[in-house]
């Protein structure tokens, strides 16, 4: 992942946090706001390096908390741990399969709010919770699951547009060449 892709990812996080605070259409329709940051963490966990993962979790989490009544920094650790778990197991995941992307998005979008609420309760805050929170959790997880393959599609296209295509390797090997004739 080159530096342009890193900037694009951080910009996407910046814009997505603003969009979540600015657009309340989904909230009014479904009763919950969908968070794009877990979907971005899944993408970075499977495609980026540890530095990008850390940057995205810290900056995305801080921006989210800046617009929210959350204590500053409370969203950073849930995002980072989710991203790190995916990053450490990325050799085992079929990155290009939309099904795998969907399932990972579902898991990440369910785990991140759950861990954030746990952290809030641990920090002595009293978030607004009730039976309706289960519905909100379902909406957040499903929304994140749908958005994750979209994220992969958009950023993979962006990467392909900005990087040189990988040259196909020839099967020719100089050390296996059969030389005919004398000498």
């Amino acid at each position, binding site marked *: 992942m080159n530096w342009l892709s890193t900037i694009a990812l951080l910009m996407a996080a910046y814009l997505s946090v603003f969009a979540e605070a600015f657009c309340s259409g989904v909230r009014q329709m479904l009763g919950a706001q969908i968070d794009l940051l877990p979907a971005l963490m899944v993408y970075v966990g499977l495609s980026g390096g540890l530095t990008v993962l850390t940057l995205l979790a810290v900056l995305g989490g801080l921006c989210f908390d800046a617009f929210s009544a959350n204590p500053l920094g409370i969203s950073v650790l849930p995002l980072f741990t989710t991203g790190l778990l995916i990053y450490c197991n990325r050799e085992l995941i079929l990155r290009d399969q939309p099904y795998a992307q969907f399932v990972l998005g579902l898991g990440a979008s369910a785990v991140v709010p759950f861990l*954030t609420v746990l952290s809030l309760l641990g920090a002595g805050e009293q978030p607004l919770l009730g039976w*309706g929170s289960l519905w909100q959790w379902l909406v957040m997880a499903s929304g994140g699951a749908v958005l994750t393959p979209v994220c992969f599609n958009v950023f993979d296209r962006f990467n392909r547009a900005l990087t040189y295509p990988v040259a196909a390797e020839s099967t020719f090997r100089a050390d296996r060449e059969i030389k005919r004739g004398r000498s």
Partner: protein
Amino acid sequence: MFRRPHYIALSLVVLLVLIILNLPNQTATQIKLALGGLFLPLFGLTGSGQNLLEKAGNALIPRRHLLQQIDQLRAENEQWRVQAMQSAPLWQENNRLRQALAWPKQTPWQRKLGRVVLRDPANWWRTLQIDLGGRDGVVTNQPVLTADGLVGRIDQVGQRHSRVVLIGDPNCRIAALVAETRDSGMIVPASSGVLDESLVNLTYLPNRSAIKPGQKVITSGLDGIFPNGIAIGQIVDTNSVGFGLYTEARVKLSANLRHLEEVWVLFP
């Protein structure tokens, strides 16, 4: 599964989070406001976009419709003027009696109109941001309302924006009373209010109160934040809680918190 660089990164992030969480409240608020400042270009862009859309929409409204609206507003204005004329002597009489009894004089509310710019992206809080800030004279704990009723109070103030905690948020508790029976209690979030923003609970009401559905709930002024007499909502139903120790009532809010576009901030 975890290698050394992973442990190092995890430790660094945990350390950073612990440092940020343990910052003094004022510093954390200032960092929040500074981070919010990074979004000012987007605020500007969305503001101009909305203005453009509004202008385009205004240009499309037919002249006949506008004239009809002007006539309607004129009629309403006349009604309000007559009502104000009728209530002026009452106001004067009230002030005279207050003076005679040495009661503190009531001053009319000063207010400023603010536009709602953002809502809390987290689903577990009920806050929003308005485009009035410290430069407009806004300070924390000022009441925020619409023409329909109370909305909440100012929680954090930046230079250009302020955060409003809405009724129904766990951090916004209001001393209230039932207008008809004068029974006082406290407005707290309703358990069913996670999805339905229009419902809150009026709790700690006396056990033998004659509260009925449809009665009005207003602020009592006992909390020292909200002046008394601001409309909050109407009683929906009541039930006895705490093994009959006190009564709790569900209240339907007068202000529509879902579709807030402009709000008034009250100044002392």
